[in-house]
């Protein structure tokens, strides 16, 4: 198995963390250096026609979109490591529900924040204040709903860790630990407890160490 991407890239990290949760180490990272535009080369576009990382190759299967790759990994290695979709049909459905919330409600708010607060400065650009203010406000409102939910559930889909929790980690990490702008999370008691819990998992700590050294 090959993972094409960069160890510091949020979406690559989503895949690497899933592999780690499944206790799977039988893969190679093939670096695709965004700084030199390697993700737009004709060779790479044959693998990923939208020119984005990561890509997974497993035998003759080439797969892209980190959340689809994570599903594939969770199913392929179903028998080992952490069960990432719960145990019952209903638990699985709730995992899928919160995966969609991450995709459609959480990600569109936090991704622009991380771009402004972490990636833009890395490229010598100033954060656009209006974008930061607007998205922070909306993220706070969203996390109020998470707070209510997590005051009654240890994890998003219930009382078990799942791919839905994992999928939030990469961008949350960049906002909280790299940009040091984690107040929306840390000021909410149950959201904070949930973050402390999921970010102290061994699989995540392993991947985070790799992400930070390669930045």
């Amino acid at each position, binding site marked *: 198995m090959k993972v094409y991407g960069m160890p510091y890239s949020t979406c690559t990290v989503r895949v690497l963390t899933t592999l780690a949760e499944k206790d799977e180490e039988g893969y190679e990272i093939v670096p695709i250096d965004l700084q030199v535009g390697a993700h737009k080369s004709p060779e790479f576009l044959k693998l990923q026609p939208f020119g984005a990382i990561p890509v997974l190759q497993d035998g003759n299967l080439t797969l892209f979109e980190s959340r689809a790759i994570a599903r594939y990994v969770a199913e392929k290695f179903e028998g080992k490591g952490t069960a990432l979709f719960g145990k019952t049909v209903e638990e699985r*459905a709730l995992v899928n529900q919160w995966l969609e919330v991450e995709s459609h409600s959480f990600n569109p708010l936090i991704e622009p924040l991380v771009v402004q607060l972490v990636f833009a400065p890395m490229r010598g650009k100033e954060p656009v204040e209006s974008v930061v203010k607007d998205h922070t406000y909306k993220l706070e409102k969203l996390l109020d709903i998470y707070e209510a939910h997590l005051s009654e559930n240890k994890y998003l889909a219930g009382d078990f860790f799942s791919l839905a929790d994992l999928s939030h980690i990469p961008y949350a990490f960049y906002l909280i630990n790299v940009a040091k702008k984690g107040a929306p999370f840390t000021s909410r008691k149950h959201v904070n407890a949930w973050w402390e819990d999921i970010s102290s998992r061994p699989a995540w700590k392993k991947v985070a160490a790799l992400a930070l050294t390669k930045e």
Partner: protein
Amino acid sequence: MSSLKVYGKPYSANVTRVLTTLAEKNVDDYKLVPIDLLTGANKTPEYLKLQPFGQIPAFQDGDFTLYESRAIARYISDKYEGQGTALFGKTEREKALVNQWLEVESQNYNPSARKIVFECVFAQILEGRPTNEAVVKEQLEKLGKILDVYEAQLTHHKYLAGDFFSLADLAHIPVTNNLINVAKKGELFSSRKHLNAWWEDISSRPSWQKVLQIIQAGQQQK
């Protein structure tokens, strides 16, 4: 008597994504419970217990409650696996490709398509302001580049995940209908040969034709 309920209104693309999935699985024994965004029915305490983000649809199977249209579609697909259209292909590999194109729809197609539809159709009704043409222009350019990739894919495959119809194709139908038929941006599709053929094919499926009738009946019902 079925215990399935879909909460929402047929003018919502997210609601019709669920209704189309039910139709593909030959499930018509469900109740559509009206929750009208225009009256704020999605913000009542009772509804927020079902869907805390105040969005439609919500779904119930007996006393099991679920939201997010794509998660509901997955649940229906699993529950009725033995009947109707197979929506995830036949093999692990096919399923993975369906999931890939479901993510492309979610991450690439939907955000731009929805922004265009919102600006052209809903900005006036919901926010009392005119269309922001600069946003429309920007999103049309972005979506155009994405649809070029779809055109290349559909040149080699009849459907997105391969030569079989799947949930990945279905997921695109409701917003594409709004984009072409309501926002009048059909040129995005008619100018791309294979994309257009794909749209003609998937939108002529009996499931979508059935849902179109539900949408039209809903419009007459003011």
